[in-house]
């Protein structure tokens, strides 16, 4: 809707990282930060110089930074990224999404090999709610009235948010924005029944810990979203891409859930978690 | 009559401002406390209306111990006039004067009516009644202060350097005015100043204080002037600087009274 964007305006100037230094960014989402930390430590183990610029908010903030070269490497999620560039994409499966993504990214960026590890949006309800209303799939929500969905503010306008629910499943929901990336506030609201459905990333350990029921998505409202590195082409030397591809090949969804749990429950730092994972996999 | 019997005041920080003071202040006369800065004048004055609490000794008004009275009531029955008038800046002149009677329960209309009469007494134009204190000159403010002090028709009027901040000419006027008012009303006035000329001018009794509220000399002005009790008194009243040691010189055919340095102070009437 807007003519010019202040964020784009910055993209032409300044900030290109010093030659030979990889600037790794991360979302302000702890799980994403863990993956970024894994990338960073893996590259450092292979003799690269790394600068960490973690915690850079949402795509709208960091994608221009990638384009301008302020940041050169970023752990991304294939489905969400594709939807960012192409709101009307028809791709659904992991492979289709990945293929579409390769052509959707701007010219000076590219995606490396995608990982098998997936972390995608998913709708979850409490066990009690599922049992009481006989709900197991998103489509079943149509039977229940007065359902409120909770999730980050941007969900309100995402294709898989309330508008998508209506158009794909004919489900009408209220919406409460809770901006903690499916953190404790969202969870508490769900458990308190302030909201009935929560958008929680599939690799979030709280789903298992709280016995939540993840609603199935027969009509593929959500795209597959696998971990995929987004890199500025200037930085994509073979020394870098080989290392990152190797890491991604070893990363699994179970690893993600486990590591996320270590971060929230055991309160370990992302650096420690990343180091343990790398040590465990013995990649280098 | 106000009586101090071995009254001592020690402030919490240890300063003994008044040390074993014995003093009788006769009724219906003006007693002036005079002394240099820090000699305890204000402290003595404020012990009379319990704005300062004595440390030991007895203070009686007409034979009644003031510590048997409620301090707020006591204050309402004693007029108080201070330097810079202490008027309430957010109340009009007339309301300032009417304050104490109203605290005492007089109806507003009556108190204001009485206040206007008091403005006459202190020589202020009634037109000024509706002004705020900041709209008056310093001298006018002091007059309002005096009117306020008199408003509850108290027997006792305490005045703490009431004319200290005004210009000498206005000051002289106010002094004359006070003399007149006192002639009419005959209050028990306790007046504090550090100006010995003012003390001699206004006081029926002058009490000359040294540090610690010690009385250096007390008596009528003529007594003190003619028989200074000590070197301190002589210094204070200016005898040693030759200001009080006068002689007569003839200038332009008139007898000019000059001090020891030859500075003229007045003209002798024949």
């Amino acid at each position, binding site marked *: 809707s807007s003519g010019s964007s202040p964020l784009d305006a*910055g993209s032409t*100037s300044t*900030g290109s990282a010093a030659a030979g230094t990889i600037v790794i960014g991360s979302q302000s989402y702890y799980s994403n930060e863990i993956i970024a930390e894994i990338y960073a430590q893996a590259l450092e183990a292979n003799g690269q110089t790394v600068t960490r610029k973690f*915690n850079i908010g949402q795509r709208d903030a960091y994608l221009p930074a990638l384009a301008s070269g302020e940041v050169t490497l970023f752990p991304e999620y294939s489905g969400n990224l594709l939807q960012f560039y192409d709101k009307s994409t028809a791709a659904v499966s992991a492979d289709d999404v990945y293929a579409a993504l390769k052509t959707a990214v701007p010219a000076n960026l590219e995606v490396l090999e995608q990982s098998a590890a997936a972390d995608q949006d998913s709708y979850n309800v409490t066990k009690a709610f599922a049992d009481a209303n006989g709900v197991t799939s998103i489509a079943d929500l149509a039977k229940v009235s007065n359902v409120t969905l909770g999730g980050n503010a941007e969900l309100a306008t995402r294709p898989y948010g309330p508008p998508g629910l209506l158009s794909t499943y004919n489900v009408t929901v209220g919406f409460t924005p809770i901006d903690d990336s499916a*953190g*404790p506030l969202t969870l508490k609201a769900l458990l308190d029944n302030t909201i009935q459905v929560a958008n929680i990333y599939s690799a979030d350990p709280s789903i298992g810990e709280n016995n939540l029921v993840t609603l199935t998505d027969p009509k593929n409202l959500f795209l597959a979203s696998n971990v995929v590195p987004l890199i500025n082409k200037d930085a994509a030397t073979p020394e870098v891409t080989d290392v990152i591809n190797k890491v991604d090949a070893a990363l699994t969804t179970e690893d993600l859930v486990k590591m996320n749990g270590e971060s929230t429950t055991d*309160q370990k730092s992302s650096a420690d978690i990343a180091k343990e994972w790398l040590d465990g996999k013995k990649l280098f | 009559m106000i009586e101090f019997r071995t009254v001592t005041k020690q402030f919490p920080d240890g300063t003994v401002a008044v040390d074993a003071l014995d003093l009788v202040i006769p009724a219906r006369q003006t007693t002036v406390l005079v002394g240099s800065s820090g000699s305890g004048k204000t402290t003595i004055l404020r012990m009379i209306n319990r704005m300062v609490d004595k440390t030991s000794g007895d203070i009686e008004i007409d034979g009644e111990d003031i510590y048997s009275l409620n301090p707020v009531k006591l204050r309402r029955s004693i007029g108080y006039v201070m330097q810079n008038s202490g008027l309430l800046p957010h109340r009009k002149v007339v309301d300032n004067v009417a304050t104490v009677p109203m605290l005492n329960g007089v109806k507003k209309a009556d108190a204001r009516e009485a206040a206007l009469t008091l403005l006459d007494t202190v020589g202020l134009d009634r037109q000024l009644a509706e002004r705020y204190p900041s709209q008056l000159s310093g001298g006018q403010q002091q007059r309002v202060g005096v009117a306020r002090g008199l408003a509850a028709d108290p027997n006792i009027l305490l005045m703490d350097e009431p004319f200290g901040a005004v210009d000498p000419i206005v000051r002289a006027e106010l002094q004359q005015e006070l003399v007149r008012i006192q002639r009419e009303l005959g209050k028990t006035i306790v007046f504090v100043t550090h100006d010995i000329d003012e003390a001699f001018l206004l006081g029926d009794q002058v009490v000359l204080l040294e540090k610690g509220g010690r009385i250096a000399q007390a008596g009528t002005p003529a007594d003190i002037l003619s028989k200074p009790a000590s070197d301190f008194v002589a210094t204070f009243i200016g005898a040693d600087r030759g200001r009080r040691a006068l002689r007569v010189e003839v200038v332009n055919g008139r007898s000019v009274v000059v001090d020891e340095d030859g500075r003229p102070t007045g003209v002798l009437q024949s």
Partner: protein
Amino acid sequence: MNWVVNNLGLIWSLTLDHIALAVPPIILGFLISIPIGWVANRYHASRGVLLTISGLLYTVPSLPLFIALPAILGTGILDPVNVVVGLTIYAVALMVRSVADALAAVDSGVRQAATAMGYSGWQGFWQVEFPLAGPVLLAGLRVVSVSTVSLVSIGSVIGVSSLGYLFLNGLQRNIVAEVISGIVATLVIAIVFDLILVAVGRILLPWAKADPSARQTRRRTAERALTGTVTS
């Protein structure tokens, strides 16, 4: 508590980031405010306009300001300069009034005495008015310091590293100790800055301690600064 012990390194490095973001706005804000405040005090007609404009700057919410600045300055989005400039704007907004008040509070008698002694205008300003405005300036600077230190956190929302990271990250991970450690560290920085400013004041303004009347004006004016149009 365990979290704090295990993450002292992180807290420390974020504290350094926080300090690095807070110091330049405080100093720049002070330097920029001096000429503006001087004009506001010197030319009565300009006073209202200048103070209103600076007051207006302060009502701009910080987050959008940080986001809009790259477009205005041509800086990168993640450039800490955005936060520094944004906070400098707030610092100026607060400080201009303090400078104007501080200069106005200089005893006009002393100012006249200086002229009478033969100080030229420039000399008089730097050797008499400015140092005498010192105590009130310092009081204003202390307000600016506290306000800046507490505002830096907002920069974390747009990805500029500071103690604010601990708030957002602690929120996602539900680690209360992390959020609290961020608050405490912010508080500590504010207190340390304040102590430093007070100490600098003691050194540069030895006379102020001896001057009770100056202390009172200083207090009055400082409180006026706090209860005036100042927001944080």
